[in-house]
């Protein structure tokens, strides 16, 4: 393997020949460079897509900050090179390297990969290959780094199980430190010790899933039968990891020199969501709702500006309107930063006129448009997906938005929800036109509506985990209808390629057998699946054929409620009974109200009763736990299920 100096020297010649060389240099403000030889544990944090996207990933920014705060640890970054750079690297035999010190990834002790969505899987294999690290966990020896991964898609990590040594299920802040500690103790105890022993140690950490310590079986019809652990102390199920309260916000962000996708500083104001939209993966896996105080957020903004000079701050959450002190927060932001030419964005606002007041108070620019996400256009569909918004309220909010100076409204919808018909899709077109009509009344011909219509993919751990995904033909018919209807002045439509939707659908509810499909697809050239121009559908179809699996088995089957899901041993701590009931409610068109109004015992509180009791008050939106007896349920549950 090349040394960091040799890599640096080869880069000198390569960089002037590639597009946007700034992606590959590092050296940005706030990057952390430590003395390589003086630090005990080296961690490479990888986003398996290009720099431009990866730099906006908040999860990795948090871990980078946390790890580098430790004196005995260094964390450096790496991203997937774009195709021109990959070709140049392969030609010049440059392995994938870290931006900070240009060390090959193979020289690190731990490589941590962020997997927020499934279309990164083939690029992950490509990253390992470019790093010259064996793709399969079983082929790695004591000289190779430990490969770990986390992120939303790892709540069903099975399609990636043979490639990753250990997954972190849930929140990574606490887990990463314990993983580092375990690696340190292990290396101290046994130089070049057996890798399996390390993995068995790691499996004892709360939230860590080591797939090689479990075995799965299938029924003859191909459905999932059971999971058995191969090591006594491995947990079953593997409960997700959470932080009892949100740790201090990261504020010393690395500031990119080149333009990136979300070129701003993200500050999380709240984690989790109480709304319970039935299609929403994030809403189910990030419970309970925990908030940061207004003062904490204001201080974080101040620090961020001081360290980075960013002109834009994004206040992040799954549903900003539900942040308890949102009005106070916006007032304080205005008071404190009103004169500083700082643009503050507050995404995911509810469809109500209060949201327009909030945006107005933030003095946000009008050029980006105002975004609303009704997701569905008929009463029936809104009840099915549990997102009750009335058309009347939407039109009233739209009117308010146009009157206050915005010329563009972006409307987000989803097609393909369970039991959706072409009439429901027609209603999306009608609703967009009705909104545009409001705009015309208010500001005339300048009014615009941009409709972003994505396609629903049934996600694991949600009440819709049993439903089939629309076929390519069904999706095309619905998109054709929209394309025909939503044209003309002031209307714009964006949609997703139905083939890409299928890929996401196979993988999100896949089992371990799909790993071979991922591998075969990568071998046939699949990578950058999320990039339309690179998505290689034929490679995937050939891979399925080769492995002898039917893609429709994963996507187009109504799964029986009593079928065991291949991801059930990975626990969000939401009970299957709750998900089943919620699914049955959706069939009746029955709404489940915001759970801040009433606790529906989804399963979070019994599991985390101890944590809740230690953190009383507003920091969680779940009710307080008084009954001491509840605390033991977690142990019982585990005992019963194992």
């Amino acid at each position, binding site marked *: 393997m090349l040394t960091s100096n040799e890599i640096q020297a080869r880069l000198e*010649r390569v960089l*002037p020949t590639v597009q946007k060389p700034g992606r590959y240099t*590092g*050296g940005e403000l706030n990057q952390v460079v430590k003395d390589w030889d003086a630090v005990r544990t080296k961690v490479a944090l990888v986003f398996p897509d290009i720099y431009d996207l990866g730099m906006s990933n908040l999860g990795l920014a948090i871990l980078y900050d946390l790890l580098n705060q430790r004196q005995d640890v260094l964390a450096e970054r790496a991203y997937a090179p774009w195709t021109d750079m990959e070709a140049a690297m392969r030609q010049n035999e440059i392995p994938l390297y870290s931006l900070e010190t240009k060390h090959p990834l193979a020289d690190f002790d731990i490589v941590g990969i962020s997997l927020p969505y499934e279309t990164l899987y083939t690029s992950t294999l490509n990253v390992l290959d470019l790093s010259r690290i064996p793709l399969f966990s079983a082929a790695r020896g004591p000289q190779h780094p430990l490969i770990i991964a986390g992120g939303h898609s790892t709540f069903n990590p099975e399609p990636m199980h043979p490639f990753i040594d250990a997954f972190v299920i849930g929140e990574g802040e606490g887990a990463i430190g314990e993983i580092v500690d375990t690696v340190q103790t292990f290396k101290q105890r046994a130089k070049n010790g057996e890798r399996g022993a390390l993995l068995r140690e790691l499996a004892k950490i709360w939230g860590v899933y080591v797939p090689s310590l479990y075995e799965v079986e299938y029924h003859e019809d191909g459905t999932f039968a059971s999971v058995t652990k191969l090591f006594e102390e491995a947990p079953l199920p593997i409960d997700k990891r959470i932080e009892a309260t949100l740790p201090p916000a990261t504020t010393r962000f690395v*500031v990119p020199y*080149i333009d990136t996708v979300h070129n701003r500083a993200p500050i999380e104001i709240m984690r989790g969501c109480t709304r319970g939209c039935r299609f929403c993966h994030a809403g189910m896996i990030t419970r309970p709702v925990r908030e940061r105080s207004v003062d904490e957020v204001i201080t974080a903004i101040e620090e961020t500006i001081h360290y980075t*000079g960013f*002109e834009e701050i994004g206040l992040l959450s799954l549903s900003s309107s539900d942040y308890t002190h949102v009005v106070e927060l916006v007032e304080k932001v205005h008071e404190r930063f009103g004169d500083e030419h700082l643009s503050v964005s507050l995404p995911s606002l509810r469809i109500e006129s209060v949201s327009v007041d909030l945006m107005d108070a933030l003095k946000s620019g009008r050029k980006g448009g105002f975004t609303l996400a009704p997701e569905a256009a008929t009463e029936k569909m809104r009840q099915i997906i549990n997102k009750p918004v009335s058309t009347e309220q939407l039109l009233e909010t739209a009117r308010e938005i146009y009157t206050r100076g915005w010329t563009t409204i972006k409307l987000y919808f989803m097609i393909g929800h369970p039991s959706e018909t072409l009439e429901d899709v027609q209603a999306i077109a009608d609703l967009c036109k009705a909104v545009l009509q409001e705009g015309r009344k208010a500001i005339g011909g300048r009014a615009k509506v941009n409709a972003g219509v994505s396609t629903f993919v049934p996600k694991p751990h949600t009440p819709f985990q049993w439903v089939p995904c629309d076929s390519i033909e069904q999706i095309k018919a619905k998109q054709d209808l929209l394309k025909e209807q939503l044209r003309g002045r002031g209307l714009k439509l964006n949609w997703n390629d139905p083939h890409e939707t299928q890929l996401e659908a196979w993988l999100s509810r896949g089992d371990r057998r799909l790993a071979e499909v991922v591998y075969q697809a990568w071998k046939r050239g699949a990578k950058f699946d999320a990039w339309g121009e690179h998505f290689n559908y034929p490679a995937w179809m050939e891979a399925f054929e080769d492995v002898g699996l039917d893609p429709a088995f994963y996507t187009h089957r109504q799964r029986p409620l009593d079928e065991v899901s291949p991801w059930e041993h990975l626990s969000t701590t939401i009970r299957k009974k709750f998900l089943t009931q919620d699914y049955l409610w959706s069939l009746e068109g029955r709404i489940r109200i915001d759970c801040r109004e009433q606790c529906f015992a989804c399963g979070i509180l019994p599991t985390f009763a101890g944590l809740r009791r230690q953190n009383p008050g507003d920091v969680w939106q779940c009710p307080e736990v008084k009954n001491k007896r509840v605390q033991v349920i977690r142990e019982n549950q585990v005992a019963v299920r194992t």
Partner: protein
Amino acid sequence: MRIKIAFSKTEAMRYTSHLDLQRTWERTLRRAQLPLAYSQGFNPHPKINLGAALPLGFTSDAEIIEVWLEEQAPLREIESALTPVLPPGLKVQDIQETERRVPKLQNLIQSTKYQVKLAESTPDLAERVADLLSKTSIIRQRRGKEYDLRPLILALENEEERHLQMHLRAQPGATGRPDEVLLALDIDPLSAHIHRSEIILEGE
């Protein structure tokens, strides 16, 4: 108050484009908490103005940026506010106050000087230079357009076998590029390190 900052651009910063450099300066000035003047309108922008664009990959210790401030401040204070917040690869060389009536920077630039180091020694470099300079016109194509490079070369000298000095015209519609000069000398620009050493303004 209108100030002119001379700065160097090196290290990773040399792969930062003109537009991205503009944003990097905006953020640097914000970190320094200088009283920046902003344009009017719905999306106000800080009033700053970068001089001659430096092609990607070149280093320089002669770049210029103009900045408008809301209030008067001593130059020394401005410099001590900037120095600790500069990103790696940017270094302030000099700060001066400019008169408000002076035309914009871009309209003042006359010519630029470059130091070029070649990765491999070129034994007949002196001959190639002499040969090129003896021509009355050097017709070249750039982005599909034909132009004459010769009048854009104000001076071209070689010191040793692998070191060139260039002085090139830099006016709107008549800007000489050092990589074009290298190509005319039959040298691969990728094997050269190109460094801008001076920007010459009108009246200097």
